[in-house]
């Protein structure tokens, strides 16, 4: 019995030891993490070498980078439409009414809008308005199915947000002819083409909608000041509508953004470009 009791007290001692030991360790852990966080600014990350140069992504995003539906079956494209609608909600005019937050940055691409240091010394930073109407057929205002019911799907293209990143407009001679057609020195143009040579004729006509009818991202939306300073930041969009896609075949489309500091990589297929697969079934 005595042995039993000493065993119990022993076990209790050991338990107590580990409680204290792990307690202390947890304290040390939390303490060092807090100290580490003190060295990190709230407003901008210490390093951005992993996140830049930016990626180019599309909406809708459902599971895979693939859009496949039947024009006559509303159920088949419902997820895409919902996804687009949800994304564009923040771009609606009624969401951009507060003048303390939003600023009218004009209808045409202009130069960067620097808004001072990356700190809250002057409170939150203003955000450029982006009118949903600029997206025209792809705005979802006239056609709530974004062209899907007619087999003419829209996608939205956006450049990934990176704090302080100022994309530079491309030097003119390196661009495809279609992009050169509507050139602005304050624009990061976007262009979509068939990924594979043999798909070139299946892709049909491609319509681009964006600020001032430009297919690209206007520079006045940059730089981005981060979630804390610009909580309601609207990144510039380009809508791309494929009005004459060949049905019943897989068509792979690659969209690229062009800029001096926009790069492409073989390893990262979403850096400065992306590719998306269309598969529209006729019935």
């Amino acid at each position, binding site marked *: 019995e005595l042995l039993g009791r000493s065993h119990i007290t022993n076990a209790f001692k050991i338990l107590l030891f580990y409680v204290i030991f792990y307690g202390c360790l947890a304290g040390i852990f939390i303490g060092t993490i807090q100290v580490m966080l003190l060295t990190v600014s709230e*407003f901008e990350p210490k390093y951005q070498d992993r996140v830049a140069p930016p990626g180019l992504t599309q909406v809708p995003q459902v599971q895979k980078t693939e859009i496949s539906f039947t024009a006559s079956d509303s159920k088949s494209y419902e997820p895409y439409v919902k996804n687009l609608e949800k994304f564009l909600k923040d771009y609606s005019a009624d969401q951009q009414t507060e003048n303390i937050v939003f600023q009218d940055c004009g209808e045409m691409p202009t130069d960067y809008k620097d808004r001072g240091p990356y700190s809250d010394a002057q409170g939150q930073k203003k955000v450029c308005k982006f009118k949903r109407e600029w997206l025209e057929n792809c705005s979802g205002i006239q056609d709530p199915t974004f062209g899907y019911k007619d087999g003419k799907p829209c996608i939205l293209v956006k450049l990934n947000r990176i*704090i302080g990143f100022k994309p530079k407009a491309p030097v003119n001679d390196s661009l495809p002819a279609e992009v050169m057609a509507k050139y602005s020195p304050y624009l990061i143009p976007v262009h979509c083409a068939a990924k594979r040579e043999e798909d070139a004729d299946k892709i049909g006509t491609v319509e681009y909608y964006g600020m001032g009818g430009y297919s690209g991202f206007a520079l006045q939306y940059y730089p981005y000041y981060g979630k804390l300073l610009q909580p309601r930041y609207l990144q510039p969009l380009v809508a791309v509508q494929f009005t004459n896609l060949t049905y019943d075949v897989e068509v792979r489309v690659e969209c690229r953004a062009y800029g001096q500091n926009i790069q492409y990589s073989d390893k990262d297929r979403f850096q400065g470009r992306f590719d998306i697969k269309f598969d529209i079934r006729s019935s």
Partner: protein
Amino acid sequence: SASELEEKYGTSINKGLSSSRAAEILARDGPNSLTPPKATPEIVKFLKQMVGGFSILLWIGAVFSWISFGIQFAQGAESPFDNLYLGVVLALVVILTGIFAYYQEAKSTNIMASFSKMIPQQALVIRDAEKKELPAEQLVVGDIVEIKGGDRIPADIRLISAQGCKVDNSSLTGESEPQSRSCDFTHENPLETKNIAFYSTTCVEGTATGIVINTGDRTVIGRIASLASGVGNEKTPIAIEIEHFVYLVAGVAISIGVLFFIISVSMRYKILDSIIFLIGIIVANVPEGLLATVTVSLSLTAKRMAKKNCLVKNLEAVETLGSTSIICSDKTGTLTQNRMTVAHLWFDNQIYSADTSEDQTTQPFDQSSPSWTALSKIVTLCNRAEFRPGQENLPIMKRVVVGDASETALLKFAEVILGDVMSIRAQNKKVAEIPFNSTNKFQLSIHETDDPNDKRFLLVMKGAPERILERCSTIMINGKEEPLDSEKAEAFQTAYMELGGMGERVLGFCHLYLPENEFPDTYPFDTDSMNFPTSNLCFVGLLSMIDPPRSTVPDAVSKCRSAGIKVIMVTGDHPITAKAIAKSVGIISATSETVEDIAKRLNIPVEQVNRREATAAVVNGMELKDMSLQQLDDILCNHSEIVFARTSPQQKLIIVEGCQRQGAVVAVTGDGVNDSPALKKADIGIAMGIAGSDAAKNAADMVLLDDNFASIVTGVEEGRLIFDNLKKTIAYTLTKNIAELCPFLIYIIASIPMPIGTITILFIDLGTDIIPSVALAYEKAESDIMNRRPRNKKKDRLVNEQLAVYSYLQIGIIQSVGAFVTYFTVYAEQGFLPSTLLGVRVDWENNAINDFEDSYGQEWTKYQRMYLQWTGYTAFFVSITIQQVADLIIRKTRRNSIFQQGLFRNKVIWVGIFSQIGIALILSYVLMAYWFVAVPFAILIWVYDEDFKLSLPPLPLTHPC
């Protein structure tokens, strides 16, 4: 008779066998050689390395990797090849470590193989009525062979003629005294009869002719050798320990793996993902590099021991010696110098002691008495032994002598004291001589004297003391001849008994100056008719000889004693000699008594003595024969100092088994073929490199190159040290397992991005950690390891609970915390604050999400996240490495503060640390920034460990029975 023999073996004594008949018999019986023990085929050895230890677990990991690759590939997932490569890497790890272990093993076996390659023996055979030199292997039953002094007997031989033939049967019976052989049948027992010479014994002198009666495995030696191979090989203690360790770690790996498999399945992870987690957990838990490290450490120690004259045949035996608790040692050659040496002298009614050490150059006893001058003259002249010519530059003790053991002893003794014996003999020309024979038991010679004025002849005689005394009427005291009255005879008896009681062989010496008038210059001495006086001589003195203990042995025995190792002497010699040597080397300490001693002191019959009072025991082989196992156990347990005398090979085996029944780890030394069963049975068999027979070396685990008992003690020290150091190595290696395992567990439970990859873990286990863990093998002992008792096989495990708990639950956890701080720092500085990381796993790993938002609102593509994740791996890897440096430093000692042990005594540790950091630098050529995050935790580990060591209770230094 000869003709019967001829008939029985179908041969002719004069002509021998015909070549064709011999070939027939050879075809029937096989060659005349011992079948070597069956070797395991190399491929089996190799495959054993492939599936032993952790290999099975790693194979399982590899197979799982391939399975998940197969599934992913079939499903067309994006990057299925990762798992294929992981599987290949795991398989490679197993195969490479297997090859490495196999190579190490093979290397140490090769050292031994060189031993068995001896020059093929030749035998002189009569065949087809001609004398032929044949390789001994081709001998067959019925062959007539001739042998002469110096030959090895090529087979079991029945002698048909012999001239002064003596054989040395020591390799068979352990008795070192040469035995004469003749063609007379003297005993029923073939081992005792005089007309048989045995295979592998040597003919010391004389010549003989005989008929081969047995060849190869059917010889007496062959039968003993097969007895040896019948004794199974038991697992070495270190093999058991490593097995225990493997079970422990594998148990932890499997139970955590299965537990988390269940957890992850019930957390609705996909089965495939769960399998991948399982692989990660296995890889994190298995110390892939450890078994290779252990092998390297053992072979380093083996090398070190080889330098100290212990050649280790089986790597694992290195440690066995360290855990030895009983050494059963041979006497002749191991404890003693294996040569007769003059130990005592008696003249002028007084006993003098002579120096018996190995490298004597002078003798310290009083040499001023004229009696000594007379005695030394007899010793010099009445001696037929001679130095082989051309050895003038060698020390006297090392010179080779032609002659028997006692004459050699006397010759060397005289040479040391008097200088050039040969020239003294030349000055005292020998005119007649009667050599020693067993009937008269004396040796006599007559010399001219070196004094030109003294024309008398000097007759000198030596022999068995009682026979010599019978022939004397006077005795020399202080140079004067005095009548030998009963009082003086009494004094002689007392001295004789005393010297004999010390186990020494005693010789008496006397002389007589022949009167000039009766024996003029030209007197024809005739040794056959003995035309000169052989009685009424003048007794001069006694000399006693012994095979003295090696000078290093008493020290070694006392070291064994303080190390808690019991030394038992097992010898074929006479009990009195055995006891005397045991006493002089300290196997029986000065204060302890045997039952017989107590009986003698108290003057009571032996039966009445309380056996518990006697600490020592001398057991005769005859007594042992009648003993039950119970009685033997009783003796082994109750007496701390034991000598077994007059034992046979089988009895040696029984003694070893008895010791093993006590739970002891038994080391046995031996040199003869007769020892091989016991060598094999012992936990570690130690064969003598110089005197040892091949059979003994084959059966042994270790070979003592200098035949010196003291070398065993250094071996024990090394063995204990390596056990301590292996503990350190294992503690070092196990610690980081937790830091490798925690990431997986937290990844599964908290769904954070993966902190460390499986391949990265292998970088640690097989890259940065290898050299440091080997470096621990060079660590010096913390305290006097030779003052500890041998480890208890059942209690002192290589990996005990305390070591595992301390490594896993304390240091390992601190390491994990340190590594996680680094991990969170990397992510936070890149944009993901710790709070945003929890629960992100599914989206984080989704290939379709390329605008993953971080804490600042920035968006990341999949590849950018993966790149960040790899940065995290590297940082995690680097911080484990940094903390392993601290771990390495704390593992240098187990009890002492690092300040006591000194940071710089073991230079190899620094090689380890620099290699570790160097390899880590190469593997993570970027990211210097994250090298320092874990440094505070490394310091924390060190400070914590110092405190832990301070809190340890002092080591108990008790020495129970």
